[in-house]
């Protein structure tokens, strides 16, 4: 059976400047050459700093954005595979019910003029599910699943706290029994104790309905908790992907290592020396040549500014770094100032 979702060489570029004839002259390369696979019932955590293109990747997979290149193979029923990248919006409509989204900010993703009932009912209505009464019963059932009592049916979103709103968003996303849910930072706007409630809810629903999540987040601890596999992005490129254990216990790419080292742990006994990365994520319209990470990389080599690293398969995981490529791995170290250095935390 083909995987639920297979993204191949996805590129999302936005035109920045145009020439006299209106053709793009320079591009903002938000997502460049990204390959991902997501199996049924699996959670793939997509992590990276802001501006690394993780949200754009999620939007492109749902075709909220049109990719410039690449294919998005989606197979909701296990039989027929559709290439979402090549379809028109009209052709996509019947497939939309299989893919849903949970947004980051529950304060702006609910229409303030609609009641909870109307919000959760809307996807059912649009897709012509059941009779009016069946739809209403389904809304009650969905709110129950999301942990909200049905006395809230006729309330408006402003009457709810952030955590409750996120539950409404989840109920809406579940309405049509999707097989894929793209979650864009679903808990980053919530307090810790509420975060735990929403994460538990999402994990329960995943087991119950065999959902696949593409879980976009910048919080590594959250991803460590919920994901089965993890993909790390930097400046629009995928730098490493593998199982959760591989990425967290034995990261290979220097960026993954520094990202993990920078992420604080809620355990004071674990205070240790950490690698502090200097500098910031580069401007996506003016990326450095070769490996995009080389100006900040603590292990950069002389070949890094010239050669774009290819995908290397090591123990079932993909890494894009010249350190692991046979041809380049013995290059001399690049002398640069301002790159990361070890520090006592």
């Amino acid at each position: 059976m083909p995987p639920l979702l297979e993204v191949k060489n996805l590129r999302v570029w936005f035109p920045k400047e145009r020439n006299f004839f209106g053709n793009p002259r320079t591009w903002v390369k938000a997502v460049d050459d990204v390959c991902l696979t997501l199996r049924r019932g699996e959670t793939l955590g997509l992590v990276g700093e802001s501006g690394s293109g993780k949200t754009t990747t999620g939007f492109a997979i749902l075709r909220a954005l049109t990719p410039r290149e690449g294919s998005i193979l989606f197979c909701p029923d296990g039989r027929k595979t559709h290439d979402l990248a090549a379809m028109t919006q009209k052709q996509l409509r019947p497939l939309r019910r299989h893919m849903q989204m949970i947004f980051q900010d529950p304060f702006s993703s609910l229409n303030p003029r609609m009641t909870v009932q109307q919000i959760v009912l809307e996807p059912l209505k649009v897709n012509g599910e059941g009779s009016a009464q069946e739809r209403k019963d389904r809304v009650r059932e969905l709110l129950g699943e999301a942990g909200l009592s049905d006395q809230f049916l006729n309330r408006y979103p402003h009457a709810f706290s952030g955590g409750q709103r996120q539950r409404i968003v989840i109920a809406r996303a579940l309405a049509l029994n999707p097989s894929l849910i793209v979650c864009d930072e679903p808990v980053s706007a919530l307090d810790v104790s509420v975060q735990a409630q929403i994460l538990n809810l999402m994990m329960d629903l995943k087991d119950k309905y065999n959902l696949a999540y593409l879980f976009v987040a910048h919080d590594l601890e959250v991803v460590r908790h919920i994901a089965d596999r993890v993909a790390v992005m930097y400046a629009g490129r995928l730098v490493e992907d593998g199982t959760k254990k591989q990425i967290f216990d034995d990261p290979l790419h220097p960026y993954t290592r520094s990202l993990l080292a920078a992420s604080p742990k809620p355990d004071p006994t674990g205070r240790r020396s950490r690698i502090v990365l200097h500098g910031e994520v580069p401007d996506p319209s003016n990326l450095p040549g070769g490996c995009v990470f080389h100006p900040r990389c603590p292990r950069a080599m002389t070949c890094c500014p010239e050669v774009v690293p290819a995908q290397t398969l090591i123990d079932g995981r993909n890494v894009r770094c010249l350190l692991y490529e046979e041809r380049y791995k013995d290059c001399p170290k690049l002398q640069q100032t301002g790159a990361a250095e070890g520090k006592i935390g």
Partner: protein
Amino acid sequence: MSETVLEMKEVHVRYDTDDGVVHAVRGVTYSVSLDETLAIVGESGCGKSQSSFAAMGLIQPPGRVPAGEILFREKPGADTVNVLKFHRNSRQMRRLRGGKIAMIFQEPMTALSPVHRIGMHLDEVLCLHTNLGKQERFERACQLLTDVGIPDAEKRYHQYSFEFSGGMRQRIMIAVALACNPRVLFADEPTTGLDVTIQAQILELIKKLQRESRMAVVLITHDLAVVAETADRVAVMYLGRIVELADVDTIFATPKHPYTIALMKSVIGSPLADDGRLQVIRGSVPPPLEHVPGCPFHPRCDSFMPGVCDKVIPEFLPADEKTITACHLYSKKNGN
């Protein structure tokens, strides 16, 4: 142990609104010494920012500070002054605020003026609190920008805040706060909204500057991971009260108050959290206008004792030699 710089005693903050009284801070007591980092942790709306605004004289009507003392020692060995005695617009308060008591505000995007150059923010502080001339102020400002890790300071001095990234804006906020070598620095969520690599840079920077210029830091945050990495002592707040105060190792290893225990268990990766399902705290924080009798946490507490917890407000007392907590489980009179 170094000398205490700032001491809060039973500080209250309340807002009398048309809809009712919001009692944002209900008796907060803590002290912080030189070279020490005290973290104040709590969920949104627990009054952690409000208590520090009181020390800065930033509570504006309809808000007021009806009771309490905030004792501040301006120079080593000097007597303490009660900051709350000064009116927020008085000469004494204006001299302290931004000078000896400084604050890094949350969201550097909104805290910096979009229509003034970055240099103006620094120049204003230096102009108000020092006797330096124009050229000296410019030099000092550039030095500060360099200290907080902004390259090319003389050019950056003339730029606007929108020309800087989030991390760089936070560095500017730090430079403004540190311009006059404060004795106490309140850092209100200094790294919320920043990426982890930038967060690590900013926390390192605050630590480095604290070592160099000797000050007390009060770190206000909801992120327990940041607390574990940076704090010396931790105060946990719930609904306007400190419920537990202990040093960082003790509070993470053996929390006493049921709220702290529940909070630790709900944080992924903390020593008390399980790997599978996360523990959650029942219910939610009551709305600000609601009054909870007795212990504020009793409606959500697993160790709720009827007749005690919902009647009597627990006192803030030592539970053992390391921890001070406000919970009936540990007070001798009602001992379990």
